[in-house]
Structures are given as C-alpha cells and as structure tokens.
C-alpha cells in the first residue's frame, strides 16, 4: 500500500508563528461584537414591556419576569463584558466558562427582546428542545461509533428514513410500538450493512457510498410508500404512538420533572446511550480498541486487533441506533410515514457529531443546542416575530462551518476516519 497523503491545505500553506491575535483574542473580539450588537440593537428594538418566562407549559403559574428592554440591555452588557475579559487575556482554564457565559448572555438578551410583552413557557421549551434533539442525539451517536473506528457515516439520513419507514410499516401491521422500534433498528442496520460491506470490503469511498445510500433509502421508502402506504394507509401507515411514561413522584419536580420523567422511552434511550457509549469508549476494552482502530489501524492490527471485524461491528451497532432514531419521526413526532419526512435531520445529526468533536457528550451538547434553535424557530414564528424562522434554522449549519473552520476551537476527526484498511 502506498503512503496516503494526509496533508491538509493548512499544513501546505505556511503555518503562521505565534501572534498577538491568538484564538482567545479572536474569540474575545467575536463575543464582544455580539455583546455590543445585543446591547445596542436588541436593547433599542425591545419594547419596554414585561417578558414572562413561565415555569409551566402555558401562561399559567409562577414565572420569572423582567422588563424586556432592561433585560436585553443588561444581558447584552454581560456578553460585552465577557468578550472584554477574553480580550484582556485570561487563564486558559476559565476560557470555556467565560465563553459560554458570553454566548448564554447573548441568547438571553435576544430572548428578552423577543418575549417582551409576551410569555415563553419554559417547561414546554425545554421538553420540546429535548424531544427535537432525540433523533439528532441518536444519529450523532451512530456517527460516533462508526467514525471513531474509522468509517465515515454520511448515510445517517438514509438510516433515519429506513428506520422511520420500518417503524411505521411494522408498527402498523403488528399494532405494536415496540415491534415498530425493533424494525426501525432493522431498517437502520440494512443501510449500515451496505455501507459496511462497500466501505470495508470493497474499499469504496465512504462519503460517496453514504451519499448514494441516502438517495437509495429515499427512493426505496418513497417507492414503497406510494405502492403500499398511500393506497391503504389503514393497514400499512397508522402505527400506534409511543406512550408517555409518567413516573410518580419524580414527575412532580418543577421543570425537570415534566421534562425528564413524563416522557417517552426514546428520550431515555438517547440519554442512557450517551452515558453508555461514553463509558464504553473511555473505560472498556472495546472502546480502547475502537479508538485504536480509528486512529492507527496498522498499529492496532499489529497487536492483534481485528480491524475490519471491529469496524463491521461498530457500523452495524450505529445502524441499530440511527434506525431507532428514525422511529422518532413516525412513532413520536407525527404518527405516520411520509416521503422524505426526515428532510435533512440526518445531516443536522452529522453536524452535531462534528460540532461535538466526535464525542458522545459533545454530540449531546450540540444536539441540544440545535434542538433549541429549532424549538425557538417554531416559537418565534408562532408569536409572529420579525426574525425569520429560516435564519434560526440555519444556525446548526452555520455553527458547524464556524467550528470546522477553526474560528472557535479546532475540531479534529479521528486520524484514520474514512480510510479503508488494507491488510498488507
């Protein structure tokens, strides 16, 4: 096997020496700029009316109230201050904290402007965020499994679609939610299996396979939808909805209770898997081997790890998880399958995976952030905000571009990600 060039354009264009405008200062400028924007623009636009953040799913009950204009300006100033601190120079360990504070203050300033004179139900927002994040978390975890062992998975969208389709079809025919979830996993595995065989055995470019598999899944589900489900929705496309489980006692805790303990099984599955995969990757033999195979397959092979076998296993496991994520669309969100119903969610999951730096908890955080942006977009268009929902929906994509461009921290993929292993 000839040596594969892994040089990026960055290495080829001369690396700049340490300079004054390092990462932290550039970040500081950015945060200060958005702080200034918030203070001046949001502060000026916000009406001087009360913004109520109710601790329930509607307007009733206790609420955190603040004057919209005061809030917008105050939080804007906080963001500005965070930017100034970063710009002035700061010990490295506080950097992330201050950065988060700045961004959070910016978001709050924005909210004060938008909610002024209205109310924002916090519980509804948080649980909506979590629900929207569930498929993203599961999809991104599927990506984590594949990519940490060196197989790029761009086919998350296809796995979602097959999962959603399988869940609707089998769920209806067996009139069982759990049969639906199971067959969703099978649907995901089908796509994963093709991906695995073509990428690992036939050494096809993994991004190519992923893109083509997305189209294949789109075609297959669309074809079967028109042939089976459309003529006879009753017997093929009316799966039972996933039940919400109410845990007595725990569900009565304010805010957290209704969000975490009065919800469906997929939410729990997603959260548990985040912890399980994090533990698996960092603390178990399987995890060590997975990371070794993803970073340096030749070395892993030398010490007796079956590179291809492990990759097959991880990609198929990923298929199970992403397929289950697809079940969300038919069993939780809508209650029936529709053509191309995932409409790019798989790519947001991919973005969450990259934005979360290929780690389970990073993926969780990114998925929650993206889920929040989506939830906020629906809220804003519901209350008739002047901010177009399309721009909020762009946020995940733009944030990912900023992240990969290294403007905010550097993201680095596993070294052997996407490279087939050829035993020599």
């Amino acid at each position: 096997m000839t040596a594969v060039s892994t040089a990026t354009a960055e290495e080829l264009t001369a690396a700049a020496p340490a300079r004054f405008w390092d990462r932290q200062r550039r970040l500081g400028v950015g945060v200060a700029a958005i702080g200034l924007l918030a203070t001046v623009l949001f502060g000026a636009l916000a009406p001087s009316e009360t913004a109520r953040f109710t601790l329930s799913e509607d307007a009733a009950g206790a609420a955190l109230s603040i004057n919209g204009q005061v809030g917008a300006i105050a939080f804007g100033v906080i963001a500005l201050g965070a930017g100034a601190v970063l710009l002035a120079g700061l010990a490295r360990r506080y950097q992330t904290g201050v950065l988060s504070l700045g961004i959070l203050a910016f978001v709050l300033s924005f909210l004060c402007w938008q909610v002024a004179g209205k109310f924002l139900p916090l519980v509804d927002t948080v649980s909506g965020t979590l629900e929207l994040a569930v498929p993203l978390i599961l999809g991104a975890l599927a990506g984590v499994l594949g990519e940490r062992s060196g197989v790029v998975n761009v086919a998350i969208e296809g796995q979602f679609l097959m999962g959603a389709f399988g869940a609707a079809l089998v769920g209806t025919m067996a009139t069982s939610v759990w049969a639906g979830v199971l067959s969703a996993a099978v649907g995901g595995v089908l796509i994963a299996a093709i991906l695995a065989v073509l990428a690992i055995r036939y050494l096809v470019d993994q991004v190519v396979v992923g893109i083509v598999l997305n189209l294949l899944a789109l075609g297959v589900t669309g074809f079967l939808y028109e042939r089976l489900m459309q003529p006879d929705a009753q017997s093929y496309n009316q799966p039972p909805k996933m039940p919400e489980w109410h845990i007595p006692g725990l569900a009565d805790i304010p805010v957290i209770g209704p969000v975490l303990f009065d919800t469906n099984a997929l939410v729990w599955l997603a959260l548990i898997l985040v912890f399980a995969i994090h533990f698996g990757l960092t603390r178990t033999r399987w995890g060590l081997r997975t990371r070794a195979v993803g970073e340096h397959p030749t070395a892993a092979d030398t010490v007796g790890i079956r590179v291809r076998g492990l990759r097959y296993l991880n990609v198929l496991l990923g298929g199970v998880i992403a397929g289950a994520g697809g079940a969300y669309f038919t069993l939780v969100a809508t209650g029936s399958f529709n053509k191309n119903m995932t409409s790019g969610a798989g790519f947001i999951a991919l973005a969450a995976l990259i934005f979360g730096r290929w780690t389970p908890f990073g993926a969780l955080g990114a998925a929650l952030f993206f889920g929040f942006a989506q939830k906020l977009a629906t809220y804003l268009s519901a209350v008739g905000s002047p901010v177009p929902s399309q721009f909020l929906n762009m946020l995940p994509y733009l944030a990912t571009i900023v992240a990969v461009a290294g403007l905010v921290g550097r993201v680095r993929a596993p070294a052997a990600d996407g490279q087939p292993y050829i035993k020599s």
Partner: protein
Amino acid sequence: MTTDGPVGAPKIADETAADSATDAAAPGPVGAKPAHDEPGDGDTLLNRFLQNLWAANTVTVTVLSVVLALVIGAIFIIVSDPDVLSTFGYLTARPSDAFDASWTVVSDAYADLFKGAIVDPATITAWANGTGTWRQVFFPISETLTYAAPLVFTGLSVALAFRGGLFNIGGQGQAVVGTITAAMAGFFLPLPPVIHLIAALAAGLLGGALWGFVPGILKARTGAHEVIVTIMLNYTANLFLGWLILQKGVQQPGRSDAISKTVDGDAQLTSFGGELRANLGILLAVLATAVVAWLLNRSAFGFELRAVGANPPAARTAGISVARTYTLLMVTAGGLAGLGGATQVLGTAHALTPQVAGNIGFDGLLVALLGRNRPWGTLLAAILFGALRAGGNRMQSFSGISLELVTVLQALIVIFIAAPALVKAIFHLRAARSARLGASMAKGW
C-alpha cells in the same frame, strides 16, 4: 467494422441471461457464458476484443451495472404489486402464473421506460400515417434532454472538483443559489432580449461561484474539510431560498404560496416550441462540456489542478500554490453548478419555488461518478439519467409505477459503478488489462 456480427451475439446472450434472472426474481451469477472464456491462441483483433468483452473494463462494468440495477428494480416492481404477489401464493401448484404475471408487469414497466425516454414506435407509425406529428416522435428525446441539461452542469462541477482532489457535495447548494441569482436577474433587470438572457446566465454563474468560494477559501486558509462545509451550505442555501421567495417584491403578486415572479420572456432559454420542452440549455451544456474538457486537459489551470489532485505536497514543491488552486477550483465548480441552476430556472421552471432545483445537485454527484469524472463521460451519464427520469414519468402515468423507482435505479447503478469489485465478483469477470477502476479517493474528513 468487421467485428459487428460477433458484437451482437454475446450482447444477446447477455440480455437473455439477465432476463431469465428477472423471471426468477433473483439476480445471480450468469452460468452459461459463450465459449470465448478461454484465451485464444491467435492474437487477432477479434480474439482480443472477445477477451476484453468479459473483462472488468469500464464499458462492461457500466453496462452490467445498469443491467443489475434493472434486475433489482424488477424485483421491487414484483414485490410491491399485490396482484402479482398473490400468484406467488400458489407458486408450487402453477408456477407459470407467477412467472407470467411477473414478466408482464416488469416488461410493461420497462417498455414504458424506454418509450418515454427514447422513442415510442406508435408515434412513428402515426406520423407515417399522417395522424401524428413529428413533434410527437421527438417528444421523448426532448424530455430526456430537458432533464439532462442541468445535470450536465452539476455533474461537470463535481467531476472537475474531483480531479483537483476536492469532493464538491455542495452542487445542490450552489445550484440553488444559481437559480436564485439567475431568476432575480431574470425578473428584475430591464434589459434588451439577448443581453438579458446572457446577464441572467452570468448571474447564475456568479451566484454559484460565490457559494463555491466559501468552502474553497475555508479549505485553503484553515483546512476545513470541503465535504462538511458544502453539506452545511446546501441546507443553508435551501433555507435562504425558502425565506426569499416569501419576501415582497420577489413573491408572485396575488399569490400567498411560495412562488416567485416569473422570469421575463426574453431571459428564458428558447425551447423548440410546442410540446418539445428541450431548450438552449442542452446546447449550452455540450458547450460547457467542451470548455471543461479543454480547461482540464489543455489549460495551465487544468494542469495545476490535476497536479494538486494527484499529490498536493508534490504540487507545492513544484511551485503550484495549493491554496490558490483549491479556491479557484471551488469557484469554478460552484460557477458550473450555478449555471446548472440557471438552466433549470430559465429553461423549464421559469419561477422560483422551494423545490425549483429539485435534486440536480445530488444527481450531479451520481452523474460525475457514473461518468468517471471525465467531461464527455459526464455528459453521457447525464443523458442516461435524463432518459431514466423522462422514461420514469411515462412509467408512472402509464404503468402506475412510482417515479421513485428511478431514484432507486440511479442509486443502484452508481453503487455498482463505485464498487466494480462487486460487479466483477457477481459476474465472474476477468481482470481488465488496463484497470482504471476502483480509483476511489478515500481520504476521509
């Protein structure tokens, strides 16, 4: 052409083999292969030709990929037809029923696919009898070329970037931005006829180029992987289009749904009139193919981009600016995809809708792969895809087979093309003498 006779013979054997596989509803290794399996002693041209025919060369693999895809598509048709499936219920009692029913449904579907894509014999007889017009005869071809034109541009965009070592998944986004700028120029600029069309096309090119510039400059400056950036930009462009259409001044007056004003007549690509929708776009596409072929093989920039694509460090050592090449390459690729979008909106759609660009960007990716990243190959592949799409329309309305089957066929063809080793194994092909296959550029993120 002394080899004409023998060419026909194995081809026919080939097709019957595929047909029998279709009948049995299972693709499998084709057993009886003509006697040209053992290498001949005489090194005649004929012998060598026969030897190569069943080897894993580009042409054989492409043809077999299409055949395989059609076979799998046939299985889909049979499995999803309840009437045919019911005949399989008593397969052991009367197998002929099941095979006849399967054969009928599949052959009808594929006959419609052919009639809708190339020519319907009925229209020729009608024309000869004087009951039909020549336009009806050329209607299928016109449809094929109409669908092919934008795909040529997006395919060339992907192919060109590929040759420079970049994977442009952003064809979709670049095409969407191209439709936006071209359409805006089409209904905002008050220009005289010809100039207006040129201005609108140029606007589409510039829009796409701008959308290609972003991943290019980010790749060159920061090393951000172009696959990630372009995927994200695709969806950004779509959302932007969705927002823009609903704005005052852009939206069609008197409409509340998402549709823009119509492009001025003198900015539209002239079509052949009547029911023939094929327009100047396809001629532009051929022209673009020639330009890209020249650019790639004859120009200094083409040489640089191929050098960078083959080995970036070596190219840099040779004095080529890798960063500049990447940026310029993505700008060019983006411009091509933008032209594809412009062809779509100026040629057939005439107004912006959320789905105006359809799937031309992603299809362009498949077209480039099928065309082996060569300009003229891409043109042929785009025409094949256009034919599938045009035939698919007829198949949907005449045989009731969903158009989605075409998406399945296209995806399957490209899967087999991308994995020639798979095709080789299925058909027991001999290794090709000049193996140019499997040149995947797996390099990950």
